[in-house]
Structures are given as structure tokens and as C-alpha cells.
């Protein structure tokens, strides 16, 4: 529990105070015999506000060095790795619904197994081995609520939209054309014979 920032003890003290407010109890991070030490830490999972998260506390696993040893959490969230040699280790937390950064843990032989922890993802140093998720993970896509826009955006919606444009907006466009030009165009059309919609349909042709 010595401060990490050695150059400015005052700041470090403040940081320590800050942490003490949040985590009322201090942890004995390590103790042990000469060559093997114990790493003790804690996993804190904030109460989830996302509906559908069913992470059970009892299924959270803590993994040392990519599977060298695996441990589970006690009811209070503490975990312990026993018989860890001095050196640099990696701790990962596997909990459904949360993403935890792996933690680099230096167990010092000189300081009798003092533990120094750093989050490898954010490079943040931890004064205590208290692991919190970086983010929550949502494994399912969330269905968009029903909206007119999504209906319009679908291929069928586009087809209907195009039809609406043709039926209602085209006549409006025609109106805007200069009446004389319109007449001219109509005459031209008449000369060529207008293919009306009714003549296109075979039944219409028969009825004539």
C-alpha cells in the first residue's frame, strides 16, 4: 500500500485518500514465503442498468497468465492466487457481459512480494488490485423500434414512394409548364397517337 507516484508524496497521499473513501478497507496485497507469494485482489462489478444482463457473480473467473491458474470470486468479490513466483504476471477477468482490461502485475521479490498493478489497455496504474470493468458488453443487436422511416427505407417502401411521386407529383409538374408549350406538346403527342394506360391493358382493348 505504498504510493506509486514517489516523486510527489503529497499528491500520492491525496490519491490514497481518494481511494480510501471509495474502498473503505485496505487490502493486504501480498504475503508469502521467500520464493512464492500470494496475490489478492478484488473484482467490483457495478450494479447493471442494462436489462437482460444475467451475469452471475459466481460464474466470474479470474485467470492468471493465460490459464496457468484459474480462480473464482468469493461472495465479497475477493480473489486470491497462491504460490505465485516473483516476476511480471498477467491477470484477466472473464465475466459475461463485461469487458475487463488485462492487468499487468509485478510481484517484487525485493519488497517481499509487493504487488504493483497496471491496466494494460489504458496504461493506468492501480494503487490497489481492485478490478472494474472497462465497459459493459451487449451481445445482441437491439431491434429498432417501429418507425415509418424504416418502412419507407425498405425496398417495398421505396417502390410505393416512387409510385406516389409519379401519380401525385407528375401532374403537379405538368401544371407548372407554360400552357402554350403544353398545348404544343399535346398536339405533337396527338399526332403520334398517345399510348394511354387503358389501351395498354389487354382487357381495356377488348372492351373498346
Amino acid at each position: 500500500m505504498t504510493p506509486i507516484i514517489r516523486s510527489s508524496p503529497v499528491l500520492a497521499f491525496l490519491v490514497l485518500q481518494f481511494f480510501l473513501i471509495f474502498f473503505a478497507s485496505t487490502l493486504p496485497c501480498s504475503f508469502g514465503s521467500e520464493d512464492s507469494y500470494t496475490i489478492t485482489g478484488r473484482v467490483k462489478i457495478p450494479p447493471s442498468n442494462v436489462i437482460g444482463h444475467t451475469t452471475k457473480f459466481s460464474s466470474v473467473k479470474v485467470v492468471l497468465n493465460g490459464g496457468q491458474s484459474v480462480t473464482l470470486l468469493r461472495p465479497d468479490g475477493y480473489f486470491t492466487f497462491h504460490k505465485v513466483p516473483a516476476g511480471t504476471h498477467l491477470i484477466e477477468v472473464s465475466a459475461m457481459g463485461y469487458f475487463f482490461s488485462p492487468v499487468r502485475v509485478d510481484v517484487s521479490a525485493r519488497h517481499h512480494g509487493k504487488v504493483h498493478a497496471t491496466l494494460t489497455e489504458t496504461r493506468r496504474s492501480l494503487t490497489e488490485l481492485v478490478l472494474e470493468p472497462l465497459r459493459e458488453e451487449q451481445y445482441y443487436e437491439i431491434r429498432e423500434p417501429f418507425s415509418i422511416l424504416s418502412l419507407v427505407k425498405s425496398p417495398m417502401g421505396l417502390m410505393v414512394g416512387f409510385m406516389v411521386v409519379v401519380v401525385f407529383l407528375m401532374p403537379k409538374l405538368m401544371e407548372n409548364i407554360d400552357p402554350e408549350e403544353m398545348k404544343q406538346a399535346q398536339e405533337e403527342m396527338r399526332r403520334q397517337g398517345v399510348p394511354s394506360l387503358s389501351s395498354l391493358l389487354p382487357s381495356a382493348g377488348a372492351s373498346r
Partner: protein
Amino acid sequence: MAIRFYLILVVFLLSAIVSFSLYEDQVGLMDWHQRYIGKVKHAVFHTQKTGRKRVIVSTEENVVASLDLRHGEIFWRHVLGTNDAIDGVDIALGKYVITLSSEGSLLRAWNLPDGQMVWETSLHSAQHSKSLLSVPINLKVDKDYPILVFGGGYLHAVSPIDGEVLWKKDFTAEGFEVQRVLQPLESSIIYVLGFLHSSEAVVYQIDSKSGDVVAEKSMAFPGGFSGEISSVSNDKVVVLDSTRSILVAISFVDGGISFQKTHISDLVEDSGKAEILSPLLSNMLAVKVNKRTIFVRVGGEGKLELVDSLSDETAMSDSLPVADDQVAFASVHHEGSKIHLMVKLVDDLDTVLLRESIQMDQHRGRVHKVFINNYIKTDRSNGFRALIVMEDHSLLLLQQGAIVWSREEGLASVTDVTTAELPVEKDGVSVAQVEHTLVDWLKGHVLKLKGSLLLASPEDVVAIQEMRMKSSGRSKLTRDHNGFRKLFIALTRAGKLFALHTGDGSIVWSVLLNSPACARPSGISLYQWQVPHHHAMDENPSVLVVGRCGSDSSAPGVLSFVDVYTGKEISSSDIGHSVVQVMPLPFTDSTEQRLHLIADTNGHVHLYPKTSEALSIFQREFQNVYWYNVEADNGIIRGQGMKSTCSDETADEYCFTTRELWTVVFPSESEKIISTLTRKPNEVVHTQAKVSTDQDVLYKYVSRNLLFVATVSPKGAGEIGSVTPEESALVVYLIDTITGRILHRLSHQGCQGPVHAVFSENWVVYHYFNLRAHKYEVTVVEIYDQSRAENKNVWKLVLGKHNLTAPISSYSRPEMFTKSQSYFFPQSVKTIAVTSTAKGITSKQLLIGTIGDQILALDKRFVDPRRTLNPSQAEKEEGIIPLTDSLPIIPQSYITHALKVEGLRGIVTAPAKLESTTHVFAYGVDLFYTRLAPSKTYDSLTDDFSYALLLITIVALVAAIYITWVLSEKKELSEKWR
């Protein structure tokens, strides 16, 4: 033109937003998940009057689980680490499950109802020894006896309430082996019995409160002990002497030791080497002599007498106290296709409390273990239930002469997986299928539409889900047009073969392998033996199972051929030589049987099938057959070619000798092979050309004969915490296996294993640990063919001056170049696989099995060495992602979504007939299957496609046309009148 078409296709594929994602209501539509526990080692029943009846089990897969005794479902389960084997399990205080693991050095307590870990205690251990767990049965609630644990040379007394070590006693003296820790009921003295140098029995009496040695007695036994021991009562044990012919009863009443020798030949006539069986029976022991099981009663003064003898191989349970101070035990033996369960009183073997005969599937093999439990029937008599573990690892509960439930626990230890097609649906043979009427069909689709527009009520949602689950005969036993229905053939450690249907994961058939040579061969690997698709269409496809008799690599091999459609073993042969390596050859005979070469320990190879036709095909290609073997311990890779037929007199004409063509020797002081990998032999590559942004063409170096090898410094071969960055280096090689030429070498300083790699087309992706950054890294290496690079000129192509049709040979000097890039990856990895599709057109995804037992689908575009920090507009259009220092983990792209494949060991992919789709099967303690479309289903409509919306639109359009026609006619008419 083809290139242009391909380019358009590629651009189309890449521009699509590719990510595996699933809505919560789609779970279980394409995927299934099965939970297992493995072969049961210990079982403890918990059947009190109140509460649910359960059985606590620990298994060989390091699982501790609580099972529902009524249905066999899992209440809770914990998969411990791979080197955390469970030595003992028991229940303490009626509310905690106590497990002892890691060679007696970790003691854990779990809450009985929900499996939450309550406490964990690490026990001091100094040496390897037996680990013994003894949890006292609490008769008086106020008295609190400690849990006694012996392991690692120390005896610990641990409080069951909080796991506190009350006292510990050192037994690590030289040559001293503790055999038994006994505590008589209601006594404060603990007896610790051990052997000193296997010839002297020592008994310590220890005060259970303080752990002090009260008394110590020893007595030498000149014959020496074999180490097999059976405790028959609280003050007596029976051991076997070193010649295995004398039983010695040791009693240590009141601090004294006395021996009582009995020759086994006095008990039975034809005696040989004896073996003490493990069950704990009070005042009796079971001894196996000459394949017979004899029961020996131990009298008051250590006098032994024979009471019963069974000829058949029999499984026995521990003894169980039943009412009125009587003790009973169960035995199970086989008779034909039936098993007989008998529960007898220990004191009086003629009193049979229960005798039941149960029909048993032949493919479950023999009974390995029996656990019994009693209950009081309504007429106040004793009823018994028996939990039995079979040879195929399955777990069954027997009660009242019937199998109440069974669990196929063999599937928790899958060793190899292959795929097989289902039979084609024949005319005439119509599988029962209820066709919906049009109204039903429309109703269903309207429901689906409501669902997709989130307008459905909760009842509708249930109806939709039910409809989807039942839909389209997903579990039909015939082939379908898209190739979605297939069989996964899984070989388990018990030597049993299972065929699992991709539709719902049901077991279509299962077969336990047999062999003429040995009773039960252990399976090694699976191969596709016969897959008829051009010739021999009337024959059923079959798989080849290679096994061996015994665990030693020089043990004789066994080949088994299993019909995939019926699940029948066609033939099984003892091949008379060992199996080191099996090589499927790219040749098939006229009945489409694939030729296989099997290498033995003598350096010979044997050709299968042993037919003259196969021999003639092989002789034609004799000069073109090469193979290699990796000696990882010596750091040598050897390339071999065929030489001649064997000259031995015993050998037949299908045996060949080999000659060594090349060797690659890694310096043992600096490099150690940790991983080797080749491409999957059946992988399909669509095109060799890769068109880059500026219309430039790169040619992939696609060779089947590339071997990826990863080596680390010997110091760095251990775990992560054991080495400093300066001491470790990781080197990867790409070696041509025909010539032994090293095509590429890449060194990563300050890195170490474990290396998990995947090799596909012209690229390798591998995952390793970077010690400097203390993070995992993923590196991609892509290999391109330089010799074809000049073919870019259109005129050359037009004038035919290209070398595209030139044959590729490993002997021509390869002109190739590589591109590589590295990224950080924020998780440990257990295994990596890659998706495979029918034609290889669809873009690929890496399937990464993470340490959390989930499977992440990562698009190959994320591991593309052409990624740059600021891709140009053209590169962006091509789908190149800006370079980031670490690979993203998108939670929606976990293909296992909210599930875990506990104890994940491997991932197998297989193409479906539909090009966009691939089957993914993951195995570990659990099984998981899903169907993936790495570039979305661009060649078929999704299940979500709303036919109803399409219909409504068409109807609306027709109506609109009709209305406009009427209007237009009216208008025309009025115009004519004018």
C-alpha cells in the same frame, strides 16, 4: 472479364457492412449449445427430506457440478483450471460442498444451493503424495469437527465454517508415505497410518483439537508392502505385500500394531497376482485375483475368510449405511445385453435387498463405477437408486428397474471432428411433413412481420418463436438444397463415435469402437474414408477411425470403418503395426475410397486400402509422394520421400521404406519448436489474383506444401511470468515441405508463446505474447508470388506471353515476397480457426476462442497488412480499414453471444453448399454449433425476409393499377364526349 467481374463482386462484398450480429429473439434458430460435465470420478448424494434432491459430482474434466436427481439437469457447475484436477469432493455442515484439488493443495467450499464459492484455502505442500480428504459426518450440531486434509506431505485440519487452517502437521520425513487418515466416530484421536520405505508400518495418534502427536508406534514388515490398501474399519486396514500374494491385516487398537498374514492361495485355489479393489466396504474387502472378484471378510482379530467370489467383471459401490446398523453395497455385472444391479448387506451376502435387471445399450460398454443412495419408500422399506458411470463415460440413474435419466458425458471429451453428408431424400420415401395451408402460411408471415416491426404482443412473440423453432424441418434426416443439414462426426476419448445433427444437435447414431485385438482401443483421429459423389453412388459414405490398443505410441494400431448413414461399423481390423502419422493422399480409387499412408515407429509407411487397384494408383504417383515429420523435442523437421517396398519377410507389398530428403535442425540452445501448422488440405481458393486499389494485381502464393513453424527460446517456453523480455525471442518460419527450403523467417524479440496460429490461402495469422508491452499480439503474414507479377501488362495477356499456365513446382526457385503487420489483442486465446466456404469466394472471418470460452468472429479485413493510418479514398472504397494499434472486440460479433463453451478446446468449420454460409462447431466440455455468413447471406433471402410485406406491396400495386386504369378510362371517356 473474369477479373473484372471478380473485382466488382469483391467490391460489392467488401462494401457491405460485415459483422456477425444477432437479435436476442434469434437465439437458437441457427445455433445450439449443449452442456456437459465429463466422466464422473466422485459422486455424493444430497437427499434430505426438504429441498431438492441432488447429487454432487466431480469429473475428469475438472468439473464440480450439482445435478438434479430427478431429471439429470445441471443446477450449477464450475469448470476449474486445466491443472486443477479434483482429488476429492464431499459435503460439510449440510450446506457446503468441499472440494480438494491441485494435488491436495487447494481446498474450496461451495454453497450447496447456488454454487457460489464460499471460501478457498491454499494448503502448504512440499512434495508429491497421495491426497486424502476426510470430512466428518456431523452427528451433533454443537460439536464442530474439522475437515482433515492430507496432501503434499502435510496433514491439515481446516474449519469447515470459514476455511481457516486450525493446525498442520508435517509428514514430509524421508521415505515416509502416508496411506490413510482415520478418525473413529466421536473420538478425539486421529490415526495416521503410513509406510516408511514401504517396509515399516507407522501409526501416529494425533489429538484432533491441537494436532499434537499423542503416540507413535511402528513395526517393520520384512516382506515389504505393494502400496495397495483398503481400510476395513476405523482401527483396521488390509494391505497387499510386495509379492502381491499375501494379504496383511494391520490393526492398531489402543496404540499397538499387529500384523496378521493370510496367503491368498489359502483363500482361493488358483491364485495369481492380486489387486485390491477400491470400494470402501466395512469389515470386508474386495480383491481381484485371476479376473475373479473375491470378497474377504475381516474378523475381529484380523482373521480373513472368503465369503463370496464372482466370476464376471463386476463394478461395486462403496458401502452405505441403511437402517438398523446395517451396511449395504451395490454390485453391477453384465449378462448379455442386460445389466444386473444387486444391493446386498455387507454382513450377510445372502440377503439381497434389491435385484434388478435392466436392458442396456451395447454401445455403452461396461459399467465402470457405481454410486448408490437409499430412500425410504412409502411402505417404510428401503429403496435404492444407483448412479452408474459406463465405459463410454455416460452417466445413468437407475431406479426401480428403469433408467430414469442418462447423460452422454462422452461428448465432454471430443478429440477429433469431421463432417458428413446426410442421405439424399428419395422419391417415394417422404419424410412426414405437414404442409401448411395458404392461410396458415400467410398468418405466420403476418405474425413475423408484426414481430419485425415490433408491433407484436408478448403472446405473438411466443408464437413466433415456437414457429421458428419448428420451422422448415431443420432436424430432418435428409440432405437439403442449401447444405444446412449435415452431420458432425465426433470421436471421444472413450473411443466412441457420435453423429450430431447440425439442425438441433441431436445424436443421430453412436457407436463404441471394437477391435479383435484388444477389448477397447483408444481413438486417435478421424478421416474421411469414402465420399461418393461421382462414382459408386450406391455406396454409403464412410469414415476411417484410427485407434490404438493402449496408450503407448508403439502400441499396435486399429483401423475401424464406420458407415456414416447407418452408424454401423463396417469392419475393424488390427493392422499389426504402430501408428505415428496418418496421411490422407489426394488420390481415390474407383469406389472413391481415399488412399491413406500410415507411418509406423520403424520408419516404414503402409498403404491403405490394401487392394491391388490402390497399389497401382500409388505406384503411378510413387515419385510424387512426400511427407515430413516434426520431432518437437529434438527440434528437427525431416522431409521424406518414398524409396522402395519393404524387404522384411513379414512385410507385405503395401509396406514401403522411405528416404530422408532434407532436415531442418533448430539450434537446441536457442530455439524450441512450440507450434507447427499447415493449411487444411481440403481448402478451396477461389482465385490466385488479388486486385489492389490502383488496378494492380498481386498473385497469392498458394501452395499446399507450406509449413508454419514457431520456435521460442528454451527459457521462454514456460509460463508468462517466468521470463524477462531480454531472455525470450519468438521466431516463425515458413518452410516448403517438399524441398525443405525456408521461404520466410520472422523474428519477434522479447516475445514468447503460447502460439496459436491459423493458416489459410496465402496467409498465416498467429497470436503470441509480447513481454515488452506485456500484451498479447496478433501478426499476419501474407505471401505473394513475385514470378507472376509481370503478367500485369494487358498486351502480354492478349499476345499470350504470360506464364499463368506454367505449372507450379516446389523445385523451381520461388520468387515470393511477404507483407506483414502486427496488432495488439486484448485477450488470451485458446484456439483460432477460420471460416471456410464451398467455393472460397466469400470473405473470411477468423474465429478466435478467447480465454473466457467465448468465440469472437473477427473479419479478415482487420488483419490485412495493407492497412495504413490514413487510407486513400480508393483504398477506403476497397474496404481497407484505417490502421489501429489494437484489434477491436465488438461484443455483437461474439458468435456464442451470451453463452460460453466451457473448457473450449477446438473449433471446426465446414462449408455449406450455399457459398455464403459456413458451419461452425466448437467443442470443449460444452458443445456449440452455429451457421455463419461472413459476408451476410448475399445469395439467399434471410429467414427474416418478410414475404407478407412483399405480398401486401404487390396487392397494393395491383389495386393501384386497377384504380388508375378505371380513372384513366373514365377520363378518356369524358374527353371523347367533349
